[in-house]
């Protein structure tokens, strides 16, 4: 699993990245009440706003941690947005992206580096 400074995570399998927000991000957001996942087929560039996660209080952008084409969105979050809080780094994934530039993943932080980064916040 790789991480961004914006608190997204990425797991790559066969050239497809599963993307979600980290446990830290979910805890900071508080109770998630709505998730807007990207449309399947959409092409995203690294750093684009590609999903929105909403708590009672506010809406927050989720940025694409990698570039590519959205090949699947987590439809379960529509009825159960609280999954993002319950299992942010597992069942609470947002979307799957077919990588256009696999090298982007290598440049992301590993868990050790991400935890060190959290320590600076």
């Amino acid at each position: 699993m790789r991480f961004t400074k914006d608190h997204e995570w990425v797991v790559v399998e066969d050239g497809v990245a599963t993307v979600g927000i980290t446990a830290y991000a979910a805890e900071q957001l508080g109770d998630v009440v709505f998730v807007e996942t990207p449309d399947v087929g959409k092409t995203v560039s690294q750093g684009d706003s590609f999903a929105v996660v909403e708590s009672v209080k506010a809406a927050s952008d989720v940025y694409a941690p990698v570039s590519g084409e959205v090949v699947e969105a987590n439809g379960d979050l529509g009825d159960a947005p609280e999954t993002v809080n319950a299992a942010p780094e597992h069942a609470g994934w947002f979307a799957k992206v077919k990588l256009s530039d696999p090298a982007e993943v290598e440049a992301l932080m590993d868990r050790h580096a991400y935890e060190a980064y959290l320590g600076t916040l």
Partner: protein
Amino acid sequence: MTDETLKQTPLYEAHVAAGARMVPFAGYSMPVQYRDGVLKEHLWTREHAGLFDVSHMGQARLRGVSPLSAFEEVTPGDFIGLGAGKQRYSLLLNKKGGIVDDLMGARPDDDGLFVVVNGACKDGDFKFIDNELAGQVRIERLEDRALLALQGPEAAAVMAAHAPEAATMVFMECRAMTAFGTDAIVSRSGYTGEDGYEISVPAAEAHRVWATLLEDERVRPIGLGARDSLRLEAGLPLYGHDIDETTSPVEAVLTFAVSKKRRDAQDFPGAARIARELAEGPSRVRVGLKILEGAPAREGAEIADANGEVIGKVTSGGFAPSLGCAIAMGYVPPARSAVGTALRVIVRGKAGAAEVVATPFVPNRYVRKL
């Protein structure tokens, strides 16, 4: 604004110790939520009793030869007719009939008029009152007092143990009394739609009163996040969002704050505009919206009619924890304001179905008689 320049209420340390997430609000560092989070804090208040620090709000005494009649020069309320021990919701109005702030005015004792105004507006409000009523009232700001709100269906039972007299009060009564062993000004009111009290105590006693209330297992500390979702469900406007200097009491559907007597006399700022809007209808009116599909519509989202024509804007909105759906308030032309009117809200470029619904969204539970 950096943390260094933010003011702190007398309860700042208690919030930090309780694990609050502190945010800037109205120039103060305030708790937006505690460890439970907004959702649980909201529901706790609706089911039990929530304790809020609202010490950022502006408390003052207006004194003078006849402060009640003087206050009528800046508000449309019947303050001359305000009985001893009574409190009234009112509005500071500018000469165009726009709302400078909303406030509570009360007579807890014989010491002039006790007013509580919004924290973000307080400096401007007191300057405005001082300018408009120069020579008629002296304003003493009570900056050495904290303000706590205890809200929820179990608030009365909790309060009775510490202030037996409070149990004899009804909604919108306000009395100076000895409570928690100190001199308190207690009103049976609040801004959540629930029964409850607002309790003004000396700043030096605030920690002790706060801690005493939290010893009761029915009481939990509640942050400003839940305060906002509670007042939204209660259909109560938030100054600076749902009402401002451009909105009139008629547009904001706060005509109950324009007393019959004052309406007839037309002797308050902006009376001509308000009389005209009462007779002919305003150009826009505040409504409640239930969001039927899609993302919550928040402040600034456009409201469109069924044909897609933009007819207004959302002034506050979000997820309603007690209803399990998103709700909003906003302004639309009166012709589109009837309950049941199908509208749309535009969020991030997508139109979601919405419907005009009656407010309060969640029935209020004020105790109007004992």
